[in-house]
């Protein structure tokens, strides 16, 4: 099978903290691949390296045949991404956010409008396309971000905890839609989530990462078989242990606290 993501001995060290310790894995074209792990396991750091946002300390990556360090533009054209944190401009309308993305990704002017409207229809936001995003609910913002990530017809869609904090209706809707895109367009999907049932239902293969290392990589079925468990959640706990991980509050978390206050001052 053709590989669309190839990762060899990938490592990232922040000062004295080894976030990712030399991991290797491949993702096949057209596959739905889940990357699971406890908090602080190195999931987001890995995604950031795959998507050109972070420079690896060492190791090799190939995305759609391109190197994220030396062929950034080609890599960036190959994927769409929905980040863990929201990344819309709240002052702009839904349509404007989509249009902005389309221009950045060089979508031709003559197909731009049509494609944006079609996607907005799919994620059921067409009626509110001219409303500023700041009036949207969390679920609506997420749907918009997914639609946005698909405007340029990416070969790979990265989803970093896309369903965090969403209601079951929105989650179902999202996964159905993503599954559909995967089947129809052969789009590869690389996702992280904390919801094991979702991962089990949707993914073809799963990698479990802990303390910056991959501890298992297989189909959901085989993972359960190997750990002699009945659900992926049990398999996951067996592989990663039951200890709760502490993450240090980052400067960002502090900032978010007084962000609201600042906004009203501005």
């Amino acid at each position, binding site marked *: 099978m053709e590989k669309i993501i190839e990762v060899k001995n990938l490592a990232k060290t922040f000062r004295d903290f080894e976030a990712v310790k030399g991991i290797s894995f491949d993702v096949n074209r057209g596959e739905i691949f889940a990357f699971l792990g406890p908090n602080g396991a190195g999931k987001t750091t890995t995604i*950031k390296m795959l998507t050109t946002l972070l420079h690896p300390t060492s190791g090799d990556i190939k995305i759609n045949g391109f190197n994220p360090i030396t062929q950034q533009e*080609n890599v960036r054209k190959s994927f769409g991404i929905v980040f863990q944190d929201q990344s819309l*401009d709240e*002052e702009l309308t839904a349509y404007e956010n989509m249009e902005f993305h389309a221009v*950045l990704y060089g979508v031709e002017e003559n197909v731009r409008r049509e494609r944006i409207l079609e996607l907005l229809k799919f994620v059921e936001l067409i009626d509110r396309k001219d409303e500023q995003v700041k009036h949207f609910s969390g679920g609506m913002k997420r749907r918009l971000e997914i639609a946005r990530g698909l405007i340029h017809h990416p070969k790979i869609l990265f989803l970093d905890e896309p369903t965090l904090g969403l209601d079951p209706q929105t989650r179902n809707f999202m996964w159905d839609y993503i599954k559909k895109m995967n089947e129809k367009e052969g789009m590869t999907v690389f996702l992280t989530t904390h919801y094991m049932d979702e991962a089990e239902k949707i993914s073809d293969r799963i990698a479990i990462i802990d303390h910056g290392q991959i501890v298992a990589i297989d189909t959901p079925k085989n993972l359960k078989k190997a750990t002699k468990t009945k659900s992926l959640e049990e398999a996951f706990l067996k592989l990663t242990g039951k200890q709760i991980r502490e993450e240090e509050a980052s400067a960002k978390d502090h900032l978010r606290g007084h962000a609201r206050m600042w906004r009203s001052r501005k």
Partner: protein
Amino acid sequence: MNSVIYVMWLRQLKRYWRSKARMIGSLGQPLLFLIALGFGFGAIYQAAGQGNYMDFLTPGIIAMTILFTSMFNGIEVIWDREFGFLKETLVAPVSRIKIMFGRTLGGATVSFLQGIIVFIIAIAIGFRPSSISMIPLAFVYMILIAFLFTALGTAIASKLEDMQAFQLIMNFLVMPIFFLSGALFPLNGLPGVLETITQLNPLSYGVDGIRGALTGAVHLGFLMDFTVLAVLTIIVSLIGSYLFSKIEV
């Protein structure tokens, strides 16, 4: 590919136009300075034989408005970083130089517009430019400082993780730049150290250019003002582009 610069520019303008509270709020301070200082010191200034203080002060307050708005627009990169939008632009398959340039252009346009509004307000409360035909020259200096300080703000913000350093920048960079620029008082007859500082301060050249064009009283020289500002703008933009292109999130 210039469409990238255009959308970045347009975004800044839309954000400005849509936050009326911010637009009006940021006019409060210049208005207060104009009225309180302009009328408050007017009599003393006149008695000291220096002429009309409102005429002297207005170019300084226009420069102040542009300085504050520009720095803030540049530093807004930190907000984009916090609220995630920066990532959207950083993973896009376009050069970061274009993103930075479009953004700076947008921020500079916004602060230039704020400067124009203050100019109009000043006319409403009694300021009279000495020559109508010189007004476009004042605009040239306004645009230059708008671009320079937006680029400076962006460059600084590219190196900052969060807003905690914002107060530091306001108090130890922006405020001194404003107060030691000749915006409020004439630069002749200052003690030696202070004179040197004002000469090293880029805003001094902006204030001087705007004041020269609007009131006819130029201190450092039009050509000197233009050259210093143009060269600095290019240097700061280059440094800013470099730092912006190195941002990792």
